[in-house]
């Protein structure tokens, strides 16, 4: 039996975990999949920001002469039935997906935090009312609820963001509430009370910072599903209105008619959606492991 090299074992267990960039590198080595997720997410954000420089054609320009062109050197991912460049539309679609993903996660997340904190900290009838409303919202699947919301509000970018954000509120508020309930009983909260801090200040200064780790994880995990929900909504015709490029709508427009004759219209938006969701989930999983010491192997 080989002797155990304690130095190596300790290093692997994270005993000498360095700080700063070296820490990022160290964590990337331990969480290869997470690092891959981070790379995908970074690429995704980069694409959304610099879409105008990356895309070679205007995503909205119609050119009947080039309709349904196969992927070629000039049109890497072919053209759609209106002659628009698919590659350019996918690049610009990243903007919509990112706006919806980040926008609805941030909106739903922040409202969820406020609801969860109030619910957990005040308890009593406030908690009861919030939790029963959450029950009702959670009884419906994310997509169904978002579908009802967009149908009621009408399809537009802000409405889609709101529609996807609302079903997120109970998910986030449940996590924050559970955390708050546990934290509320800890002596440092009692100590804060005994120095005469107001409940509000205790909630913001002492409870909230201690719920951040699960919140970040939840937000990253939800990012993937919000992107997917937007795609589904657009696929069903209730998402981002024409002519703006949304991955989901690009899929839905072409799926039935062109899947045999022009499969590139289905394959490339499909890959874009899968990749973005995949990246967000990989990154979220790794983040959960890194931020939650109990999950460390």
């Amino acid at each position: 039996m080989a002797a155990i090299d304690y130095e190596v074992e300790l290093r692997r267990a994270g005993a000498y975990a360095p700080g700063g960039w070296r820490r990022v590198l160290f964590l990337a080595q331990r969480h290869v999949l997470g690092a891959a997720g981070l790379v995908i997410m970074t690429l995704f954000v980069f694409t959304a920001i610099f879409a105008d420089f990356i895309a070679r054609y205007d995503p909205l320009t119609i050119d009947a002469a080039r309709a349904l062109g196969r992927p070629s050197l000039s049109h890497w991912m072919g053209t759609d039935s209106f002659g628009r460049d698919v590659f350019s539309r996918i690049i610009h679609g990243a903007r919509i997906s990112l706006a919806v993903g980040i926008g609805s996660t941030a909106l739903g997340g922040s409202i969820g935090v406020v609801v969860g904190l109030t619910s957990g900290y005040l308890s009593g009838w406030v908690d009861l009312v919030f939790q029963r409303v959450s029950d009702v919202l959670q009884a419906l699947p994310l997509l169904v609820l978002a579908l009802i919301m967009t149908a009621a509000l009408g399809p537009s970018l802000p409405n889609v963001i709101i529609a996807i954000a609302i079903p997120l509120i109970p998910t986030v508020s449940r996590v924050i509430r559970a955390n708050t309930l546990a934290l509320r009983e800890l002596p440092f909260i009692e100590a804060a009370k005994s120095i005469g801090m107001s409940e509000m200040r205790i909630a913001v200064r002492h409870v909230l910072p201690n719920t951040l780790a699960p919140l970040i994880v939840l937000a990253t995990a939800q990012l993937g599903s919000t992107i997917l929900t937007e795609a589904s909504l657009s696929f069903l015709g209730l998402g981002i209105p024409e002519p703006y490029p949304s991955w989901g709508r690009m899929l839905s427009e072409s799926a039935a008619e062109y899947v045999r004759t022009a499969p590139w219209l289905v394959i490339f938006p499909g890959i874009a959606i899968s990749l973005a969701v995949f990246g967000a989930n990989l990154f979220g999983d790794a983040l959960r492991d890194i931020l939650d010491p109990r999950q460390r192997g």
Partner: protein
Amino acid sequence: MTEALLEVTDLRKHYPVRAGVLRRQVGTVHAVDGVSFSVGAGETLGLVGESGCGKSTVARSVLRLVEPTSGQIRLDGEDITRLSKTALRPHRRSMQIVFQDPFASLNPRMTAGDIVGEPLAVHGLASGKALEARTARLFEQVGLRSDQMRNFPHQFSGGQRQRICIARALALEPRLIVCDEPVSALDVSIQAQVINLLIDLQRQHGFSYLFIAHDLAVVAHISHRVAVMYLGRIVEIAHKDELFRNPRHPYTQALLASVPVANPLAKKLAPLVDGDVPSPVNPPPGCAFHTRCRFAMERCKIDRPALVEAGDGHQVACLLNEGTGQKNPIP
């Protein structure tokens, strides 16, 4: 004795026990069941008793961290029992608490300096550079270096964390510090350091302690007077020397007899009490201790003994001591 700083009269804290679908109340936990005591200015009152006898509930009630069911708490002559949160706020400065668990009583996401300085900031007593300077002084008072202010709680040892807790309690210059088993979670060697720090600080500042512990040696070292609690009631209060030399209540006698002797050859005495503490959900009628008492009489099952003066500020709640006039009726 000087004017009492803290006066607690007939304090009770009952928790309802609910069960079933309808959450009907099926019983009541008598956590604290009629406790009266006082703490003089600059005095340390030790409060001892077994786990679950209500010591911590007394501590939290005094600070109004739990709302007492009935009774009265007077701080400096003023009744604070029913004050609203806002009205209580100025009184909060007069009393502070140090908890048992130095790991859970510090917010892990704040620096030690922010934790200690927070009371001053909350009450608007200092800000900016002045706050930093006062925090640094507090650190030095409890034997920490001021450059440790930037560190986070997890970078300190248990004893150091407890020093941070003490510094936080000192920040508002309180007149009463409630110590809820402040050294129970620490190493024996560290215990002595922390206890001596507490004693030194009292000498310098002249505040009072309500010192809760289950370790008799610790209590004997720091207290001026000692109160013994059993099942939510105080059974005996006396000056430290008097209590240890001349315990009157059978429970106190048993408690003192159970202190381990640091001599392996010493003859082991048979324990003076058997069995477990009865449940506080339905405490026994009469004297709470009669189920385990060696001297229990028929009367003990019916009459609840009051805490009565037995001379020299020595108060006992035992029927054996009532009206006998004997100095020490218990053999």
